[in-house]
C-alpha cells in the first residue's frame, strides 16, 4: 500500500523545472533512497511534500488523504516529519530540550504556560530514552550548539524521530561527515527507524550508503524520475550509470561523496 503518492507534482523556479510532473510513490514500511546529482530536484520534492513550498500543480496523497492544500503544520500532525540537509537545531537549548520540544509538540502540550516543563517526568524519560538510542545521552544537559558535527546530524534526525512520524524524510543525514563516521550514523538511524516501523526516504549522495542501507532506490534527473527499483536493478541500469554515476560504480567521482550545495 502506498503511504505517500504524488500525482504529476510540479514546481518551477523561473524557467527551471525543479520538479517536473513527478509521480513519486512510497510504500508503507520501506526504506527508500532518493538519489540524483545536485539540482536534480530531490530537496524540492521533499520541500513540496513536507509543506515547505507550495506546488505549482499536481496532487499529494498521504495515508489516503489529499494533503496538497494542507499547511506544514497539518502535515506534521498527519505524520510527515523531516530532517534538514544543513543541521537545524535549537542551539542554545540542551540536547534534552531539543528532543523534549518534539515530544511536547507531538502531545499538543506546547500551549501550556502555567505548568513547569521540568515537572513532566514522562516527557523527560522519553527524551532521555531517545537520546540513549541515538548514543547522545551523555550530552543531555549540554547545549546543542556545542556538540560535534556528526552528533549534530544524529540529533537532527532524533528531533524528527521524536515526533513519532509515519513518514520520515532524511535530507542527506551524512553530509559533511567524514567517510569513517558515515556508516555508524546510518547504522544507528536505520536500526532505530526499522524497529519503530517508520517509513523512511533518505536523500543521499554517497552511493555506498545508498546501496547498503536502502531497499528501493529512486533516481531523479532534471526534475523527473529516471529510474526506480531495487539497489541491484538501479546499479545495473545503463541509463543511470551513464547519466549519473559516470565511470566509477561507487559514485564517489561523480557525486563528490558529500554534497553541501542545495539540490
Amino acid at each position, binding site marked *: 500500500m502506498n503511504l505517500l503518492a504524488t500525482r504529476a507534482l510540479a514546481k518551477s523556479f523561473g524557467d527551471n523545472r525543479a520538479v517536473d510532473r513527478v509521480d513519486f510513490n512510497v510504500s508503507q514500511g520501506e526504506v527508500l533512497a532518493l538519489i540524483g546529482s545536485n539540482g536534480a530536484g530531490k530537496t524540492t520534492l521533499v520541500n513540496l511534500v513536507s509543506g515547505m513550498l507550495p506546488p505549482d500543480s499536481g496532487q499529494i496523497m498521504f495515508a489516503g488523504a489529499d494533503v496538497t492544500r494542507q499547511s506544514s503544520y497539518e502535515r506534521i500532525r498527519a505524520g510527515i516529519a523531516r530532517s*534538514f540537509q544543513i543541521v*537545524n537545531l535549537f542551539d542554545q*537549548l540542551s540536547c*534534552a530540550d531539543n528532543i523534549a*520540544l518534539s515530544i*511536547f509538540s*507531538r502531545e499538543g*502540550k*506546547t500551549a501550556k504556560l*502555567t505548568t513547569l516543563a521540568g515537572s513532566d517526568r514522562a516527557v523527560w524519560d522519553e527524551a532521555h530514552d531517545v537520546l540513549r538510542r541515538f548514543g547522545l545521552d551523555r550530552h543531555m544537559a549540554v547545549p546543542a550548539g556545542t556538540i560535534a558535527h556528526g552528533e549534530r546530524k544524529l540529533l537532527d534526525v532524533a528531533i524528527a524521530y521524536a515526533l513519532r512520524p509515519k513518514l520520515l524524510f532524511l535530507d542527506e543525514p551524512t553530509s559533511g561527515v567524514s567517510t569513517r563516521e558515515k556508516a555508524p550514523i546510518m547504522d544507528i538511524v536505520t536500526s532505530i527507524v526499522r524497529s519503530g516501523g517508520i517509513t523512511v526516504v533518505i536523500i543521499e549522495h554517497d552511493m555506498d550508503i545508498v546501496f547498503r542501507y536502502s531497499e528501493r532506490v529512486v533516481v531523479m534527473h532534471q526534475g523527473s524520475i529516471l529510474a526506480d527499483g531495487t539497489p541491484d536493478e538501479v546499479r545495473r541500469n545503463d541509463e543511470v550509470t551513464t547519466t549519473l554515476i559516470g565511470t566509477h560504480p561507487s559514485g564517489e567521482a561523480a557525486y563528490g561523496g558529500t554534497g553541501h550545495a542545495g539540490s
Partner: protein
Amino acid sequence: MSMDAVAASSKVGPTVRFGVWIVPTAVLLLAAPFVIDPFQTLTLTYGLIAAIGALGFNLLLGYTGLLSFGHSAFFGGGAYTVAFMVKYLKIASMELFLAGSALACALLSVLFGYVCVRYTRIFFGILTLALSQVLWSLAFKFFRVTGGTDGLRVPTPTLVGAAPTSDKMDFLAHRYYYYVLAVFAVCALLMWVIVHSPFGKALQAIRDNEIRAEFIGIRIRRYRLIAFVISGIFTGVAGALWAPLNGLASPDILVWTFSGEIVFMTVLGGFRTFVGPIVGAVAFTYLKTYAVGFTVYWQLLLGTVLVALVLVLPTGIVGAIEQLASRWKKAS
C-alpha cells in the same frame, strides 16, 4: 533524568544558583523602607516598577528573539488607562487600575502584535516603533482627551480598599512601596513559570531556529503573538503602577526614547538570563536618578555607559557575574 539536570538544561536559566539569593533579597527589600530614607525608597519603587516592564519586554527579546522598540506604547498605555479611569470613571481603586490597564494593554497588544509578529528582526523593531509613535502622537495632539503635553493628573489611589494616608510621601514610601513589591513578586513568579513552561520552551525554540520550530509542529506566528500579548500586559501593569507614583501620565512615557530606556535596562542587566532585566531595571533607575541630579548632560553620561556596556560587558551585569562565578569555580 533528575530535576536538577532539567533545571540546568536550558541556557537561559541560572548557571549561578539565583535561588539561594531569593530569601536574602526578599529580606532586604522588605526591610528597605525602615533602613533607607523615603527618597531612596521611592527610587527603589520606580526600579521595581521598571523591572516588571523589563521582565515583560524580555519575554520577547531574550526568550522569543524579537527586539521591540515600541514598548513605551504598553507602559504609556497602562499609565494613561489609569489616568482615564480617574478622569472619566472617577475610580480610585488600585486593583481596578491594574485590571483595567491589563485589559487595555491586552487589547492594544493584540492589535499591534497582529501586525508586528508577521515580521522579525529590524522589520519587527521598526513596526513596533512606528505603532508606538502613533499612540504618542494621539496623546500629544488630542488635548481635550489626554491633556496634551500637560498630561493627566493621577492622585494617590486606595490600596485594597484602604484610603491613602494624608502624608503623601510617607504613603508612597511605605504602603505603596509594599504594594508594588507584592505586585512585582507575583509578576516575577508568573513570568518565571511562563518561561519554564512548555510554552516558554517553544518560544526559545522559535528564537533559536524558527524553521525547525515550524517543522516540529510549533505554530510560530501564533506563539509569537501570545508572547507579544503577555509582554504587553506585563509592561502595561508596570505603567499602571507608575502613574500614581509619578502623579501624572504624560506623553514622554509614550515617546520612542522611553522604549529605548526599556531596551537599555534589559541589556544593562543581561537579556540572556531571567534575573538580568530585574537587576538592569533597578540599576538603570538609580543610574538615571543620580545622573540627572549630577549633571545636566545626563543623557551623555547614560550614552557613555551604554557604549561601555556593549564593549566591556556584552552579556550585561548578570552575565558578567556568571562569568566571574564560573571562573571562580574553575580556579578553586
